[in-house]
């Protein structure tokens, strides 16, 4: 957190006479907009599973805690979005990022489907504050997925107008 304090003026005058004296000090604090998003875990793994018995593979950990902090001007709409940098890749084999979906808990957090082409809403709030929630990720399993170890990077962004 950045917090800068500037002491603007301090006027101290030698009292010319005895008796009650007063002095004025003006303290001005300049707070810049600031935001931070943190995760309990920055990795999610989807283990191998039989598509007939596990059509949707739950991620490990089952739930990823999210803390989104934002300090903005009053009534500002804060949004937390996620977008993948690419599709799921295992060497030259590619699976679409949209196979990854999530459910959410926590006020302001919403469920969604991952995309590499556009940022998807994870949560939105109004004004400054600390918001906590979680995402539970799922991978759509299928017999048509070629074997491999696929990776994908999710970029979370907190933004304000």
């Amino acid at each position, binding site marked *: 957190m950045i917090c800068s304090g500037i002491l603007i003026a301090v006027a101290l005058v030698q009292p010319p006479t005895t008796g009650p004296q007063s002095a004025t000090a003006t303290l001005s604090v300049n707070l810049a*907009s*600031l*935001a*931070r*998003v*943190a*995760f309990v*875990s*920055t*990795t*999610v*793994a*989807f*283990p*191998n599973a*039989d*598509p*007939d018995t596990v059509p949707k*593979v739950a*991620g490990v950990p089952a739930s*990823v805690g999210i803390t989104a902090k*934002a300090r*903005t001007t009053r009534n500002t709409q*804060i*949004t937390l979005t*996620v977008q993948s940098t690419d599709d*799921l890749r*295992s060497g030259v*084999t590619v*699976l679409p990022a949209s196979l*990854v979906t999530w459910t959410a808990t926590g006020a302001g957090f919403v469920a969604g489907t991952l995309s590499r082409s556009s940022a998807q809403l994870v949560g939105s709030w109004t004004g400054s504050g600390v918001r906590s929630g979680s995402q539970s*990720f799922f*991978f759509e399993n*299928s*017999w*048509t*997925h*070629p*074997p*491999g*170890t*696929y*990776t*994908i*990077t*999710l*970029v*979370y*962004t*907190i*933004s*304000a*107008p």
Partner: protein
Amino acid sequence: MKKAVWSAAAAAAILMCSTSAQAQTTLATQNVTATVTVTNLARLTVGGPLSFPDTDPDSATSITVPAINVSAKARVAASANILLTVISDKSHFDAPGTTIPVSGLTWTATGSAFINGTMSSAGAQTVASWTGPANQTGTQTYTLANLWSYAPGAHSVTLTYTLSTP
């Protein structure tokens, strides 16, 4: 003049879009990495059993039974060739007799990867083939030739289906 007005309007629209796009300010970003593990896997399901009822050869020279469903699932590399075959454990239904050969057993198939064929005990016969991971479903409708030369009795053979990669 009209063209100039339209150009101005277009420029204004572009400017408005540009302003809107720039209006959102990124305050913070964070990356999360996800890993998905997918391994080779295969599953084969064949309906049955098949039962050919006794039929007068003069009234029907062949006996056709209801189609059976065949489900062949394979999660393999995109370039992998998949082969589904069937083979009989005996050359004749009435083995050690020789009156009802399994070569009299034929099938017609439905399903994009499935083909028609004739049963054999000498070599595996192709039922379906394709390339890459897939969930193939189809049917086989078996027909047995019905001849006067068959020895009476209840005879059976076992058909073994195999899903493999060469």
